[in-house]
């Protein structure tokens, strides 16, 4: 059942060009979906942090989007959005924005209330408090969320491609699966994992750049 590593590598090399072509499609979808998901997550978190009413209203709704199995709503998505990229991106957005929202909200709510008092005492508006205190303080949790989201974006794209489509690693995967080509199946799984690792490494680097003050703390006194 498990193909030998050699045949997997063989498949990887042999299908190199084809895989590259499919990978491009998937990466574009995952990229767009992740960006859209992060933006949506951002907006949702900020809105929910600001308006308690919105928090109460949106929270169950957001949870709901996470509880409906994607594969179950996939046919509906195709019905509404056609066969192109749109339904796939919608699916990725649904699976990526949640960790962002949860992380940001958690981070913003964990801010030392004295720091907010300080800002208020300097006449800072809600927006300025957000910008100067809450968002920077939420960065570590935001990046924790982004790490999860980045992992899900690629997998989400692959699953979304099972919805149908003419190219993408998910399409490739279903085809080789149906053809019982297990070596190529493993080859594509390895490729997806490798791409994910690269993506998450990118998030890690971004994190380092965005949180320079974390490096100082490590320094011994």
């Amino acid at each position, binding site marked *: *059942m498990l*193909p030998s590593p050699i045949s997997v590598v063989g498949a990887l090399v042999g299908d190199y060009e084809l895989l590259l072509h499919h990978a491009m499609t998937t990466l574009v979808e995952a990229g767009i979906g992740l960006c859209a998901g992060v933006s949506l997550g951002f907006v949702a978190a900020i809105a929910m942090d600001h308006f308690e009413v919105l928090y109460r209203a949106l929270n169950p709704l957001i949870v709901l989007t996470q509880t409906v199995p994607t594969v179950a709503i*996939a*046919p509906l998505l*195709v*019905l509404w959005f056609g*066969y192109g990229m749109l339904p796939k991106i919608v699916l990725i957005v649904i699976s990526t924005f949640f960790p962002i929202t949860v992380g940001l909200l958690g981070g913003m709510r964990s801010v030392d209330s004295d720091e907010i008092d300080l800002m208020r005492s300097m006449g800072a508006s809600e927006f300025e408090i957000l910008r100067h205190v809450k968002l920077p303080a939420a960065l570590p949790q935001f990046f924790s969320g982004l790490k999860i989201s980045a992992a899900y974006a690629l997998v989400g794209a692959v699953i979304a491609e099972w*919805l*149908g*489509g*003419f190219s993408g690693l998910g*399409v490739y995967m*279903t*085809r080789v*699966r*149906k*053809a*019982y*080509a*297990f*070596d190529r199946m493993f080859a594509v799984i390895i490729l997806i994992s490798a791409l994910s690792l690269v993506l998450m490494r990118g998030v890690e680097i971004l994190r380092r750049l965005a949180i320079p003050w974390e490096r100082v703390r490590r320094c011994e006194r």
Partner: protein
Amino acid sequence: GCGFKPQKGVGSNSASGNADPELKMITFALDWTPNTNHTGLYVARERGYYREAGLDVEIVQAPENGADALVASGDAQFGVSFQDSMAGYVSGDAQLPVSAVAAIIQHNTSGIISLADRGITSPAKMMDHTYATWEMLIEQGIIKRCVEADGGVYDRVKLIPSTVTDEVSALSSGEVDSIWIFWGWAGEKCKLAGLDTSYFSFESVDKVFDYYTPVIIANNMLIKDDPKTVQAFMDATRRGYEDCIQDPDAAAEILLKAAPELERELVVASQHYLAEQYRADAPVWGLLDQKRWDAFYAWVSEQGFAPTIAAGAGMTDAFITA
């Protein structure tokens, strides 16, 4: 929710519970969810045919496209597959050790369905209409051959990726014009839904497409080492399917008892249709004709969809004899 009884037992724990230690444990892997293709198995189990044959059969629902691997690995002894998808592993250097041992339905009952107002009464009329494809080589090869045999140009068939789970709404919403279906399930559903449809079967276009779908497959090791068990299993199964042919209504009840989630109306209609189709013109249920088997695979090899397939590869007619 009437009369539902949870089935118990998992994998090889035949010694536990009320399983009879005398009985031989058999695991049967469905191709996916239970449906009327499988009724004979449930009837044989319900009516004790397996028990009489000294077998304790457990019917499991495999992951989609997963039965072949389960049977190949020996985790299941028998399973359901299709001759066209078996083409992927009966030849070449990544073969799975499984063989078809019986045809569940004697002839290929699949074809292309469309709404009557699209006028797709023959393959060539698929031109300029959309067709939902799974993007399988053999599948598209069959469509191509059918369209061309009917004097059409295949490139003018508009392929869209298949996301169809519900043929009725896919057709009636206009999402897609033509769909590959098995008449015994989706066709009957369309009829029940009152859709005015056109339909042609592949077998009617070209006899080479009268291949076997679906089939019961068995693990090759088992066939080699323990043909007696295979024979006993197949005999009991045949009795089950013959009961289905005799009394479709009773068969429908047994399937519904095992899978109460199914829609009664559809199961009954499908059962009545299949009663005519399980055996059809064959002398006994399950017969596999190697000539028909080979003819299809010859076409598959010739088209280059699979490496050359030897005669009789992936099948044996040893267990069902007229």
